[in-house]
């Protein structure tokens, strides 16, 4: 019930107050401890290739429609 009241209030669309800004800005941040962020991702396949060549490692490539590391 509280969630519905909250959602309804948000639809009224009064100007944002400083307090609401602070709360929403914080609420809209991604979690700080996401496991996928612990992988040392490269964003360039050529940078990944360079490092893989130096270290003698294979390259793991996540290919998506859109940037898999930062979109949607």
């Amino acid at each position, binding site marked *: 019930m509280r969630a519905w009241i909250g*959602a309804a209030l948000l639809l009224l669309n*009064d100007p944002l107050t400083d307090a609401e800004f602070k709360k929403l*800005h914080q609420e809209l941040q991604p979690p700080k401890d996401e496991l996928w962020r612990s*992988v040392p991702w490269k964003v360039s396949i*050529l940078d990944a*290739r360079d490092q893989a060549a130096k270290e003698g490692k*294979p390259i*793991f490539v996540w290919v998506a429609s859109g940037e898999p590391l*930062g979109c*949607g």
Partner: protein
Amino acid sequence: MKTKFVSVGIAHNGAGRRKDAEGDFARKMIGSGGTLQGLHVINTAGELIGYVYDFRPESVRHMLQEALKKFKPVEAAPIDFSRKDARFVLPEGGAVVEVTAKILGGTGELGDKKDGINEKMQRAWKNSIGRERLWIRKDEVEALLKGELAPSLAKRIVRYHLVDNTRGTPPSWSEKDIKKLDLKLAAGRLTGSVHLATPTGDRGFEAELLGFVESQQGKVTRFDLVARGPFWGEGAHTPGAPEGKFPMGVAFKLADPGDKLYKLIPDAVRCFPGYLD
């Protein structure tokens, strides 16, 4: 993935479209697994060693383990990457802002299937955060340092970033969709409101905005902004929006140049020619 591989993420319709050495190498391996998307393991020659288009942990783990057994380092002649496709390069002197979006209510109850993959997918969709990056040009940074909001920056924020990307790649707003754009910067406060709506009215966003811009020693040190209001409709690649109008929040926060994802290219760059105009 952290120690035995060098890991990278690319868009087949982003890196795969670049007109430079990065694009040439990406196109060498995109599609080699049988579909455009998926998880690949390649060597430095771009040859496929492992592939799976299944994100279940056991499937990914099996593919990685098999790939490690097959992998042998090969000769990797240097690739000249001095010339880059300018569309995909953050302009010199520019700034990067992280953008996150979330539906704040109205998503309804979960379906009747409890537990299992279906409930997990529904819960993920209803709670997901859309992520993107905003690029700011050098001249727009200079305007911010003078306490001004360049009209081009205001337009870019509105057209490409006040969008619902919580379920996939969203459509942008055309010039015609901007019914009202009132965004001002004064004494470090960004305030305003926007009314966006397609001609048919099937998609729209009416948002109030509040934010703060600060600078020190000739650099922008804070660019925080929140847009909040009712959103409605969906795009071709973002099906499943809640019925009717639902509260949406979008937040902007200056990115940390030390973040290893700082140079990640905005999805809007690959989707929309003229993004930086």
